[in-house]
């Protein structure tokens, strides 16, 4: 495990340093990558499957992509991703996306292969750590321990932009349809396991959906909505599993102008998991989760950015006074960019509730209601 982490980090570090502060180009080929290493320390509970109460370095990420812009319209590319988050992820390097992209014009383009899912403000960019100020995006919607399942689908995506005129802005769209599989090694599967559901192979299903966002005439202001649909079937060691189609909408807005940005998002999902265990008949487990966040940040200088966010999730179908059924997190964060390649992040979390991000296996004595967390991350990108 350690060997792979070291190799991945070293390979990307060398590539980054050799690239003279920017991208590597070989003819039409472009090569880019990033790597990050985090230190996470928490009070009370262990968080995100790490031994964080003792201070944990068990969060490493790296990626490398290759793109070939064949001509003005046609592009092909692939990205490999390495994640180790506590006991999740692993030594294997996964294909994050691998696609062919034909852009007929600005109104219409088509991508096919393994394609990132555009959902809400940050789903398609959430595993690119250098792309945002936060060390952890809102866990309520962009769960770092679940994202191996939600990020991409194997199918096709139609996309484009439609200018609405000088006074009405631009409308962007993305519509997709494809297959997906639960990751065999992330928090979603661990949650099933802690509920007593053990799969022989990870379940999977179809995931159609769309995203529509309006860049308004006011510079930097954007509003939009997404809908991801998904179902799944799977085989348990002692029965079958079926998840009828669930609908996961998100509504969002962001304003990004000069040194200031702010954004907010609301989502709701109702999901039913039907397990048919041999000898005990079918049982239905449902959830009705609503979540939202509001965030803002400011560039204090060209290189130093600070911000804060609040996020809240509750399971409306269960007792909301039980910390197992809600999650609230106040976050303060800062990021310093040494240059366009290297950066440092520091972040504090003040968590109430444990509906997401906490696991029984590394909190065997039960959960405390409150947890404070500190995260420091060092990363580079080229």
């Amino acid at each position, binding site marked *: 495990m350690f060997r792979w982490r070291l190799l991945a980090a070293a390979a990307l570090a060398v590539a980054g340093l050799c690239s003279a502060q920017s991208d590597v180009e070989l003819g039409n080929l472009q090569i*880019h990558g990033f790597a990050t290493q985090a230190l996470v320390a928490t009070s009370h509970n262990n968080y995100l499957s790490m031994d964080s109460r003792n201070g944990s370095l068990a969060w490493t990420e790296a990626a490398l992509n290759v793109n070939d812009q064949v001509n003005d319209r046609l592009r092909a590319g692939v990205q490999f991703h390495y994640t180790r988050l506590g006991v999740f992820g692993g030594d294997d390097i996964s294909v994050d996306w691998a696609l062919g992209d034909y852009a007929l014009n600005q109104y219409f383009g088509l991508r096919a292969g393994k394609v990132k899912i555009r959902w809400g403000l940050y789903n398609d960019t959430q595993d690119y750590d250098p792309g945002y100020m936060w060390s952890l995006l809102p866990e309520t919607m962009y769960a770092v321990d679940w994202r191996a399942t939600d990020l991409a689908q194997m199918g096709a995506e139609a996309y484009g932009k439609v200018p609405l005129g000088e006074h009405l802005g631009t409308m962007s769209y993305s519509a997709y349809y494809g297959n997906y599989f639960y990751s065999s090694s992330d928090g979603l599967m661990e949650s099933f396991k802690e509920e007593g559901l053990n799969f022989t192979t990870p379940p999977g299903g179809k995931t159609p959906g769309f995203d529509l966002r309006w860049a308004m005439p006011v510079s930097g202001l954007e509003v939009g909505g997404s809908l991801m649909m998904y179902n799944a079937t799977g085989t348990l060691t002692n029965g079958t599993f079926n998840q009828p189609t669930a609908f996961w909408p998100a509504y969002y807005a962001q304003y990004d102008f000069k040194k200031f940005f702010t954004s907010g998002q609301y989502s709701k999902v109702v999901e039913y998991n039907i397990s048919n265990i041999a000898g005990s008949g079918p049982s239905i487990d449902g959830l009705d989760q609503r979540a939202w966040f509001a965030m803002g940040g400011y560039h204090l200088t060209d290189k130093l950015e600070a911000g804060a966010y609040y996020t809240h999730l509750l399971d409306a179908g269960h007792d909301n006074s039980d910390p197992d059924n809600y999650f609230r997190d106040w976050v303060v964060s800062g990021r310093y960019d040494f240059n*366009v390649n290297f950066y440092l992040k520091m972040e504090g979390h003040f968590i109430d509730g444990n509906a997401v991000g906490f696991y029984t296996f590394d909190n065997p004595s039960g959960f405390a209601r409150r947890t404070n967390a500190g995260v420091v991350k060092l990363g580079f*990108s080229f």
Partner: protein
Amino acid sequence: MKIGTHGLLFMAALSLSSTGLRAQVRVLMIANPGVKAEAVTKKEIRSVFTGASVSLSDGERVKPVLLKEGPAQAAFASDEAEMSQVGLIVCWRNLVFSGQATMPQTFGDEPSVVSYVARTPGALGYISTATPHEGVKVLPVK
């Protein structure tokens, strides 16, 4: 805790010193002579140079050209694109790492930008006003 505070102050001082250097530089928008537009707006610049659009408002397709770092890059990011120097690069990297685009041509020095823009149809770049720029079209910012 003392080390953290001192470190932050040091980083802030470094950042402020680079801001001071930037204030002395002004940039010119340059384009390949074949580009039809006679001027560009800040809105068009922001849109094209953040990857939000591949064309100017009249529909003409253009190819943005970036500088890696330096006073002209900092001045362009702040005054024309209205964002931080790092923020401008991060915009593109978000597109690249999510599988939506490739990085624009990026150069480490301004003469290379002038040379590339002069020979590449549709190219649109920026340089400091002091840099010689024969063979390209200067686009005033409206």
